[in-house]
């Protein structure tokens, strides 16, 4: 047992027994799925199918767009019936024909092939933020990673999806972890799990004793306390490392993955299965058959809950995610996405709405439970007063929105909502001022594209020329110049490569820090760097063609 502690934390009623008693099952195949184009952090995917097209399970239906984005695959076989800017709808043919990629062995396959597989399988974090997995695996290009943390804490009440994943697929999850550890260079794997999941813990222990593992794998059972599943909190608890403010786990040599993601990664590699289904916890007092089910992405929430015995008269609200950080649904027509880990069909008695808010008396209960060591009561005061500079002094952006403060507030103040809207307001302000900058960057992109096209055209012409004049002698040119040109062009190409890498790093970091945001400006800057690189490569190719032509003429 680790002796390290993260500050604060609360002990909400767990209510996990409702869904962790029944075995994992497969939900019935849906007759229709709606697959949103944005189920992950970053840009929405771009559809690559048309209405009327027949697809199999695993057929690519939308391609990732920009660096932070993920592919999307059909989750049932059938006919595409609708495509728009936000989603693709597929009508099932009931045949469930699969289309898989060739199997790979993670121990022997080249890292590039593994990364490519993660990317082409449309993998995104299944924990909640939905960060594209291949981008996260590439973090080793910029940071030294020594430890991979498997975040199996699952500290939110109600949710048992990771618990059941580990009970049934402990060995596969560990293989997936080793696969990711290999990609990012981590020598150690640490599993952080709360002590309220004894069956998952014994499954893991058994799997560990039976398997061959090149990396050191440690199982750390931690006390059940919310929010121990927060990335920073878990890293503190199992490794005693403090992720710096505004930083990422990678800054302390760590990478965090959820068991579901690792399982999906392993299946994508071993079986060639793209991400088309996931395990979802169905729970709440308004359904009669709670449990965990394998669900095809795009399945409507309504049919899932109906299958679990939903009593519509009892139903008060459906929450996606946990009761602390989840969001209530406005309509049950919503589909299950890559980040849907839990659906709580709650009765009014179970999760009653908060009583009317009363004034803050600064009792400090919130401060005692804050895992980020903030002063929630002060943040509340200044958030309502819109004093943005004070909010930044009070480290508003260190807030992880775990809701522990709202949970204990005796005045029923929706503190987290205050912080979210304050963050949103501050971000909008920054976006306002970034707009001018973005216009400039778009202009630069256009210039770069024109330069690239120009350079490529010239390179092609030069190549043609070299081809046609191979036999015929050419007019004498300047002899010393090409040598010097080649060297400076090579330098320019290397610089352009570095610029692309840097832009990728900046974008990846920004997207991982704030996965819910959009990063058009950064994507534009990356695209500009890529155009510049292509132009540099074209110029280099042209100069090389020129040089060979000279050589042949001498």
């Amino acid at each position: 047992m680790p002796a390290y502690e993260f500050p604060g934390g609360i002990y909400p009623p767990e209510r996990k027994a409702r869904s962790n008693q029944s075995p994992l099952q497969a939900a019935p195949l849906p007759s229709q799925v709606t697959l949103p184009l944005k189920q992950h952090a970053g840009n929405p995917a771009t559809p690559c199918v048309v209405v009327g097209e027949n697809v199999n399970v695993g057929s690519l239906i939308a391609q990732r767009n920009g660096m932070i984005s993920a592919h999307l695959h059909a989750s049932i076989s059938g006919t595409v019936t609708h495509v728009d800017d936000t989603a693709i709808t597929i009508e099932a043919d009931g045949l469930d024909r699969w289309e898989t990629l060739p199997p790979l062995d993670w121990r022997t396959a080249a890292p590039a092939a593994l990364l490519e597989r993660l990317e082409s399988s449309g993998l995104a974090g299944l924990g909640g933020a939905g960060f594209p997995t291949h981008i996260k695996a590439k973090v080793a290009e910029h940071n030294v990673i020594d430890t991979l943390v498997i975040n199996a804490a699952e500290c939110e009440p109600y949710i048992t999806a990771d618990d059941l994943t580990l009970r049934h697929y402990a060995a596969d999850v560990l293989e997936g972890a080793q696969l990711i550890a290999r990609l990012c260079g981590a020598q150690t794997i640490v599993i952080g799990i709360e002590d309220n999941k004894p069956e998952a813990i014994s499954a893991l222990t058994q799997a560990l004793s039976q398997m061959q593992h090149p990396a050191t794998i440690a199982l750390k059972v931690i006390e059940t306390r919310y929010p121990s599943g927060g990335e920073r909190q878990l890293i503190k608890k199992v490794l005693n490392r403090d992720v710096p403010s505004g930083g990422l786990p990678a800054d302390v040599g760590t990478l965090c993955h959820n068991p579901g993601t690792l399982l999906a990664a392993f299946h994508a590699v071993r079986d060639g299965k793209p991400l088309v289904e996931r395990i979802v916890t169905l729970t709440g007092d308004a359904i009669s058959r709670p449990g965990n089910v394998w669900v095809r992405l795009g399945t409507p929430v309504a049919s899932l809950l109906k299958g679990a015995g939903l009593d519509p008269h009892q139903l008060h609200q459906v929450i996606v995610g946990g009761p602390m950080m989840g969001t209530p649904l406005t309509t049950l027509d919503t589909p299950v996405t890559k980040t849907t880990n839990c659906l709580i069909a709650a009765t009014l008695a179970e999760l009653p709405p908060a009583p009317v808010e009363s004034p803050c008396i600064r009792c400090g209960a919130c401060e005692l439970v804050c895992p980020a060591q903030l002063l929630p009561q002060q943040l509340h005061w200044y958030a309502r007063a819109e004093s943005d500079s004070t909010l930044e002094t009070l480290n508003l952006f260190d807030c992880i929105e775990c809701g522990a403060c709202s949970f204990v507030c005796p005045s029923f103040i929706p503190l987290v909502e205050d912080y979210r809207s304050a963050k949103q307001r501050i971000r909008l302000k920054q976006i306002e001022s970034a707009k001018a900058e973005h216009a400039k960057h778009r202009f630069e992109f256009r210039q770069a594209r024109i330069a690239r096209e120009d350079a490529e055209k010239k390179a092609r012409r030069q190549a043609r020329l070299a081809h046609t004049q191979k036999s015929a002698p050419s007019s004498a040119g300047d002899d010393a110049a090409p040598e010097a040109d080649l060297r400076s062009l090579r330098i320019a190409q290397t610089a352009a490569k570095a610029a692309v890498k840097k832009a990728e790093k900046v974008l990846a970091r920004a997207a991982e820090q704030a996965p819910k945001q959009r990063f058009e400006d950064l994507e534009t800057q990356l695209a500009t760097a890529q155009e510049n690189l292509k132009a540099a490569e074209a110029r280099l190719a042209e100069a090389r063609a020129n040089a060979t032509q000279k050589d042949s003429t001498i």
Partner: protein
Amino acid sequence: MSMMHASQVGAAPSTAHLMRWVIVATLPGIAAMTYYFGLGVISNVLLAGLLAVGAEALIMTLRQRPVRPALQDSSALLTGVLLGISLPPASPWWLIAVGVLAAVVVAKQLYGGLGHNPFNPAMVGYALLLVSFPTYMTLWAPPQPLSIETLFSPTLWAQIIGMLPPTALDALSGATPLDTFKHKGEAVLASEFWASQPLPEGTLSAWRNVALAWLAGGLALIAKRIISWHIPVAMLSSMTLLAALFYASDPSHFASPLFHLLTGATLFGAFFIATDPVSAATSQRGKLIYGVGIGVLVIIIRTLGGYPDAVAFAVLLMNVCVPLLDLYTVPRPNSHYNAAAQSKPSKPL
């Protein structure tokens, strides 16, 4: 938006519960005071409580705000109770009314109501009365254990309606131990002062027992996590330390730390007044500084200043410092420490 609330799952109290718990915790102290000082204590508390609730209802109506939630949170009642406890047992109704109006209307509601008052309302009321009506505010009769005679003292009703004749006032008033010690005269040594038996029999033990009753109520509040330990511990330890320094430097002129702790409003103030969350400092470090400040001010005013007791003034003075304390005691999260030292070297591009 978070869905679960501790109060709904029975894990934590609401604001109204917090207020009521503090009121409940005053009961041992009120009982002890009633035992030694008579029914005037209870009449003070009841009258002040009722007037406070009435004043709150009135001003919420005038401010066109919902009256019922304001009354249900019991904050006005608590202010009234705390002010009632602070007043001498022979206080007439109009005196109490003036204090309550200053506390609830001026100090609390005119600043925006619950949660917005920069000063401790009960202490604003108390300080106003102390400065404006010093005669009435020092009307502490010598304590005597409760008996049938004192229980139904004929003066009780006269006290309440404020009709005590001036002669009765003189007969009633007796100085508190702090007061007597304060005015012992420069030439008198502490040893001589105590040797002359300046206080009626049993006075010191009565004050000590009342203080211990406040301590019991205060510890209950800490145990129930209604208040945090920071302010009382900081205040009492700084008082003890400073009083000990004075006492050690010249025991013939200064009172012992124990005397400071067990007489006057020290323990009541430490657990029930200084801990008012609204007007106290916010962060834990801020609370410690705030408590130390109150303790230091109490000893300085008692020893070097013009007032025998000083808890009200010390609390109000520290209330002034709260915005500054809040500004300079923002905790620095772990994630801001050693960030550079801990992070692994970044690979070059």
